[in-house]
C-alpha cells in the first residue's frame, strides 16, 4: 500500500474537498453547468473546464471528463483536487417523524439520516437507494418542529465516482463533495441580506426549476424552508398563496422579502409582483459580491469555499451554526462506506508509514548486529586459537611430561653425582693443613661423611668431619693456633675450593657451617735433643700431641644437599 499509493504522503486523501488547496466547483442549475477553479492559498478563482450535460450522465463521457479535468489540474501543479458539486437543479424537503422533537438529538439524527434515513423520515415510501437525505435544523424558537430533511437524488453520484476513480487510478488525491446549492445560498445570506432587527423576513431563492422560501423570525433565525416547483414556468405559480398561508401558520406580520435571483433568464418582474402583492413589506433584491470570473447569480462556490471575515458577524444563531457545524455544507453524495473502508484510514496510513520507518530501523539494526556477529565470527575464524588442533595440546603436554621426567632424572643424577666428598680433595686438605717440614708429624687421619636425619624432607643435609691426630714441635704450635680460628680454617677451605675447584669446600655458602677444634697436650715421651740430632719421624723429638677436628655441616637447603627420593 505504501509503495503503490500516495495516501501516506499526501494527507489530502483524508481531507474534505473544501479544505484542499485546489478545488473545482461545478454548479448545475438545470439550464447550464458552470465550473470554476479555486486556488485556496492564493484565494484566486479561474474559469473551469467546460462541462456539458452529457458529461454528467453518460458514463464514458464522465471518465473522459474526469481525465481531462485531471490533465488541466496538473498544469496548475496541484497535488490534490477537491471537486465540489453544487446541485441547484433539485431541492425538496421531507418532514421528520413528528416524534423526533428533541433539539438535543440533532447530532444523532444527522448521523441517522446518512446511514438509515427511513428511521427518521415521516414518509418512508421514498426509496433510499435513489435519494440522499440530510437533516437541516430550524434554530428559531417556536418553529414547531426541530428541523427538516433535504432530499437530493443520487443522479450525480456516478459523475463524482468517476472523478474519485480517476484519482485512484492515477494515484492523485481527488476528493468529492456534493452540496445543495440553496442551502449554501441561505448560509450566504448572513453577508448579503440586510436583516432588520425585530423584523421577520423571508428569503426567496429563485432557481430555474424551483424557488426556495426560507422564513426567518425577528432574530433572523430560520423558522421554515419550503420549496415551490416552477412547473416549466419562469417562477412559482403559487408563490403569493404560499407566502400568505405560511405567514398565517408562522404568525408573521408583514415580513421583509429578500429576492435572490440565482440563475439567468429568471422572471425580472418578481420584485414588482411582490411589492404589489405585499405593499406593507419591504421587498429587496439581494445580490452577492463575487470575484470577477464568477457571475453574481452563481455565488454558491464563493460562499462555500471562503469563510467570512471576523468583521462580518453572523446576524443570528442560524447562520453561525450553519457554517460552524456545517449544516449547510453537508455532503449529499459521499463515497460508499464499504469502498472507503477498502483503504486504510489516515491513522492507519500514518501507522503504516511509521512502522515502515520502524521496520527500516529494525532491519538496519538487525543488519548491523548481524554484521557485528559476522565480523566477530570472522575474527574468531582468523584467530590462531581457532585454527589450533586441540590434540596438539595433549601431544605437547605428553612431550613436556616426558621432557620434565627426563629433566628431573637428569637433575636427580646431577644431584647425586655432585662433588660432595672426594678422597683426593681431602688429601689435598691434609697436605695444605700441614705442609712438609712444618714441624708436624701426622699420626692418624680419619674423614667421615654422615647424613643428617630429616624425616619427611625431600632433601637432607650431611656432615663431613675430618679428625687428625699427631705430634707438633714448637714452630707448629702457632700454625695450629692460627688454624684453630674461624677465619683461619675458612681461609684454608677457601684455598682448597679454589685449587681443587670443588664446591664442597666453599666456606662462603650460607647454608653450610664450618667448625674446628684443636687440642694440644705435652708429649710425655718428649726428649729434648739438639736440632741437628733430630729427624722428622722420631716422635720423641716433638714436645706436643695434638688432636684436630674439623666439622663441616651442610643444611638441607644447601646446593649439595642430597635428594631423598629415588631416580624418577
Amino acid at each position, binding site marked *: 500500500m505504501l509503495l503503490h499509493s500516495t495516501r501516506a504522503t499526501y494527507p489530502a486523501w483524508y481531507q474534505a474537498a473544501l479544505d484542499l488547496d485546489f478545488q473545482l466547483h461545478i454548479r448545475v442549475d438545470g439550464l447550464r453547468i458552470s465550473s470554476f477553479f479555486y486556488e485556496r492559498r492564493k484565494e484566486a478563482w479561474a474559469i473551469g473546464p467546460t462541462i456539458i450535460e452529457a458529461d454528467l450522465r453518460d458514463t464514458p463521457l464522465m471518465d473522459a471528463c474526469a481525465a481531462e479535468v485531471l490533465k488541466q489540474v496538473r498544469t496548475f501543479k496541484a497535488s490534490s483536487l477537491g471537486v465540489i458539486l453544487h446541485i441547484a437543479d433539485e431541492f425538496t424537503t421531507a418532514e421528520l417523524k413528528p416524534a423526533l422533537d428533541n433539539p438535543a438529538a440533532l447530532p444523532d439524527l444527522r448521523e441517522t439520516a446518512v446511514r438509515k434515513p427511513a428511521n427518521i423520515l415521516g414518509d418512508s415510501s421514498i426509496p433510499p437507494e435513489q435519494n440522499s437525505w440530510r437533516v437541516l435544523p430550524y434554530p428559531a424558537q417556536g418553529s414547531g418542529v426541530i428541523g427538516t430533511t433535504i432530499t437530493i437524488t443520487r443522479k450525480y453520484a456516478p459523475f463524482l465516482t468517476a472523478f474519485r476513480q480517476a484519482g485512484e487510478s492515477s494515484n492523485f488525491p481527488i476528493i468529492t463533495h456534493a452540496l445543495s446549492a440553496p442551502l449554501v445560498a441561505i448560509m450566504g445570506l448572513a453577508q448579503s441580506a440586510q436583516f432588520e432587527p425585530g423584523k421577520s423576513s423571508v428569503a426567496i431563492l429563485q432557481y430555474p426549476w424551483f424557488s426556495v422560501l426560507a422564513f426567518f423570525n425577528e432574530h433572523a433565525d430560520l423558522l421554515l424552508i419550503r420549496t415551490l416547483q416552477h412547473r416549466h414556468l419562469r417562477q412559482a405559480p403559487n408563490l403569493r398563496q404560499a407566502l400568505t398561508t405560511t405567514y398565517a401558520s408562522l404568525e408573521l406580520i408583514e415580513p421583509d422579502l429578500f429576492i435572490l435571483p440565482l440563475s439567468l433568464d429568471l422572471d425580472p418582474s418578481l420584485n414588482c409582483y411582490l411589492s404589489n402583492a405585499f405593499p406593507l413589506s419591504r421587498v429587496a433584491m439581494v445580490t452577492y459580491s463575487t470575484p470577477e470570473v464568477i457571475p453574481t447569480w452563481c455565488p454558491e462556490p464563493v460562499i462555500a469555499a471562503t469563510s467570512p471575515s471576523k468583521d462580518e458577524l453572523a446576524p443570528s444563531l442560524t447562520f453561525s451554526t450553519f457554517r460552524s457545524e456545517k449544516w449547510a455544507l453537508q455532503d449529499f453524495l459521499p463515497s460508499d462506506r464499504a469502498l472507503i*473502508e477498502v483503504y*486504510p*484510514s489516515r*491513522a*492507519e496510513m500514518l*501507522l*503504516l508509514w511509521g*512502522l515502515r520507518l520502524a*521496520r527500516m530501523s*529494525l*532491519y538496519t539494526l*538487525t543488519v548491523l*548486529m*548481524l554484521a557485528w*556477529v559476522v565480523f*566477530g*565470527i570472522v575474527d*574468531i575464524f582468523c584467530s*590462531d*586459537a*581457532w585454527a*589450533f588442533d*586441540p590434540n596438539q*595440546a595433549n601431544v*605437547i603436554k605428553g*612431550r*613436556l611430561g616426558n*621432557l*620434565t621426567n627426563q*629433566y628431573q632424572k*637428569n637433575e*636427580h*643424577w646431577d644431584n*647425586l*653425582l655432585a*662433588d*660432595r*666428598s*672426594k*678422597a*683426593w680433595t681431602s*688429601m689435598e686438605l*691434609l*697436605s695444605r693443613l700441614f705442609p712438609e717440614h712444618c714441624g708436624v708429624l*701426622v699420626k*692418624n*687421619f*680419619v*674423614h667421615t*661423611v*654422615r*647424613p643428617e636425619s630429616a624425616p619427611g624432607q625431600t632433601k*637432607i643435609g*650431611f656432615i663431613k668431619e675430618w679428625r687428625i691426630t699427631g705430634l707438633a714441635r714448637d714452630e707448629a704450635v702457632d700454625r695450629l693456633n692460627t688454624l684453630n680460628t674461624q677465619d683461619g680454617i675458612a681461609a684454608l677451605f677457601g684455598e682448597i675450593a679454589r685449587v681443587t675447584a670443588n664446591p664442597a669446600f666453599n666456606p662462603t655458602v650460607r647454608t653450610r657451617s664450618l667448625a674446628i677444634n684443636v687440642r694440644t697436650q705435652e708429649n710425655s715421651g718428649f726428649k729434648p735433643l739438639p736440632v741437628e740430632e733430630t729427624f722428622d*719421624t722420631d*716422635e720423641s723429638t716433638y714436645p706436643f700431641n695434638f688432636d684436630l677436628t674439623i666439622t663441616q655441616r651442610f643444611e638441607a637447603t644447601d646446593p649439595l644437599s642430597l*635428594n*631423598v*627420593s*629415588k631416580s624418577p
Partner: protein
Amino acid sequence: MNLYRQSIAMFGIVLPALGCVLFIALGFTLKSQMLDSLSNKQTLFESFKRNRTKALEIETKITLHRPQISHWAVLLAEESSSAVNTHLRAIAETLPPKEFQKTAFERNNTKAGIGSATAQPSSQLRIVFRGTFRTMQRAFLELETCMPQLQLQEFRIDPNPNPQIPSTLLNFQVNYTAWEN
C-alpha cells in the same frame, strides 16, 4: 474505521520484529557457541604455547647436558664394583707399582651411610691401598673423576704401624657409597 490496525501492527512490526529477533538470536547463539569453543581452544592454545615454551627450555637444558648425561648413563649401566676394578687396573698401569698397591676390596650391597638416607639404590665399596701420599692422591683423583657415582663415605690414612721400619708407604682405607641405577 481503523479496520486494518491490528493487521498492520502484526505484519508491519510484530512479525518483522520477531524475524529480526530470531535472526539476531540465532546469530548471537552461533557466536556465543563459537566464543565458548574459542574460549576452550584459547585455553588449550595458551596451555600449548606455555607447555611448548617450557618444553623448549627443558629440551635446551637437556640438550646442553646430553653428552654429560649420556656419559653418566654409560657409567651407571655398568656394575660399580667391576667398574672400579677396571679403572683401578687402568690407573695402576700409569703409576709406579710400588707406590700404588691395592691390598683389599670388598663389596657390600646393603645400604649404609649416605646411601641409607636416600631411596636411591646404592652399594658399599671398601678398598684398602698401600702407597705413597702423592701417588695415591693421583690415583684417587683419576678414580673419582672417572667414576662420579662414588661418594666418599669414610677415609682413613694410617702410617706404617712398625716404626722400626721407616717407609714412605701409607695405608689408605676408603669406603665409598656407589650409586646404582
